[in-house]
């Protein structure tokens, strides 16, 4: 890691605690496993899922280029098993919304999210997907101000565009959210 990473993990508005109780106010459907507990099996499955997050091949704008860069030789998303970019939403686990979603595109993005199979996660990449970013100004007519207006988002990665390290950190945060603990050491700040 070249750059110190500290502020990557933004607090999620609908913070979803991994564990037995569904978080209050969570919009997620109650899964079977939240009622009947198979603790060990669930842990094992969570571990498997966290190491096999296949993203959807879905780039919208500038951030998509950095998303590609994160998969390339220098950063190599493949180390975390997340380089299998699947073009069909049926086979993808995590949707990385990389870029501005405008009002014309919003139904398509929503449809893609609906077509993914549970369990599914969403990473909002870049300021545009977080809040509309630089295109969010008084009197704007085109864009959706944050992709969490369309469907629940699990990890927010700020930046315009975020660096590839930030994208990897987003994936790691998601792993942390799925399993409840962090696998990869946190980069230390150089003093």
């Amino acid at each position, binding site marked *: 890691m070249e750059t110190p990473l500290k502020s990557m993990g933004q607090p999620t508005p609908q913070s979803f605690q991994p564990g037995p109780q569904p978080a209050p106010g969570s919009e997620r459907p109650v899964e079977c496993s939240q009622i009947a507990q198979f603790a060990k099996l669930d842990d094992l499955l969570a571990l*498997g899922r966290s190491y096999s997050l296949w993203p959807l091949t879905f780039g919208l704008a500038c951030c998509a280029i950095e998303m590609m860069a994160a998969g390339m030789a220098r950063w190599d998303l493949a180390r975390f098993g997340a380089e299998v970019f699947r073009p069909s939403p049926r086979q993808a686990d995590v949707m990385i919304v990389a870029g501005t979603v405008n009002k014309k595109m919003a139904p398509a993005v929503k449809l893609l999210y609906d077509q993914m199979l549970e369990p599914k996660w969403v990473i909002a990449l870049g300021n545009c997907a977080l809040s509309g970013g630089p295109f969010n100004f008084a009197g704007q007519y085109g864009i959706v101000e944050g992709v969490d207006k369309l469907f629940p988002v699990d990890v927010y990665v700020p930046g315009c565009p975020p660096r590839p390290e930030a994208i990897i950190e987003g994936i790691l945060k998601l792993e942390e959210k799925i399993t409840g603990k962090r696998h990869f050491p946190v980069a230390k700040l150089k003093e």
Partner: protein
Amino acid sequence: MTFLNLEPIRILLYVVAICAFVGLNAAYLVLAERKIAGRVQRRPGPNEAGWGGLMQPFADVGKLLAKQILVPAGTDTLLYRMAPLMVMAPPMLCLMAVPYAEHFVARDLNLGLLFVFSFGSINVMALMLGGWASRNKYSIISSARVVSQNVAYEIPMLLVVITLLMITGTMSLQEITVQQAGGFWHWNVFRVWVNPLMPVTFIIFFICMLAETNRAPFDMAEAESELVAGVFTEYGGMGFGVFFMAEYSNIVVGCCLATVLFFGGWQSPIGILSGGAWGLVWFMLKTYALITTVMWVRWTFPRTQFYLLLNLSWKILIPISLFTLLLTGAMLKLPLLWKALF
């Protein structure tokens, strides 16, 4: 215990072993593919799950198994569910007939070669039905492609195999292996005194195998940039996983067959170290070398175009393989003619 020596029990054990082998093998070949891709592309590849990424296949399979099961609206439910089963069964059956070592074969059929080919042909049907049942336009286009491609490449492949049959005179895979004993110069691929075009024959076989298993540069079934995910577009979770595994199992079958037919199966390349367990070692070495080549090719070449693919088969491969067939026949029979005349 004499009970274990009995044939049905033995076959049952082999079936279990082959199922396990196919499953593990396919899972780890996926990892190998990702690692080789990483090597070719100068990056490490999966290395965080387990030691050096060795647990990665389990993570993938666990995740795929635990995905939601969904049959998309409008699909032909029965066929949609059946296709993954149909695609997985043939390679398992084919592996039953492959001699892995001298005394290590599930069932030494005297029609082993025909067995492999006849069950291998079910694969096409399965892919096609899967694509059709999905009722997705990409899948339907893709399944049409799969069929034309497989029909086109079945012909040169069978012609090549018939050439080999003329040389070996038997369809038993075990006997074909036994014939190639005594060092690599006895392997079929180097038997240039029987037919000087033997290496060409192997290349044709290899190309056809790539095409039959829908591997790059002939991966028309899953032409990602054109047809999203081709036949598998509507498949998710383990349905997709089974297709994925079947693809790798088919590669294993193809490479096993190539090893037996051209590279002397379990025979040692140097004549020594050939008995018993060494056979298994040699067999696996040769097979995995071929599999590595298949993956290497995938990450090196771009995809061809569909009409180029058909042209290659009908205009180049079939004429050449017909010529080798004729040449082999002539070279086998000419000495007899010579003897009869003089």
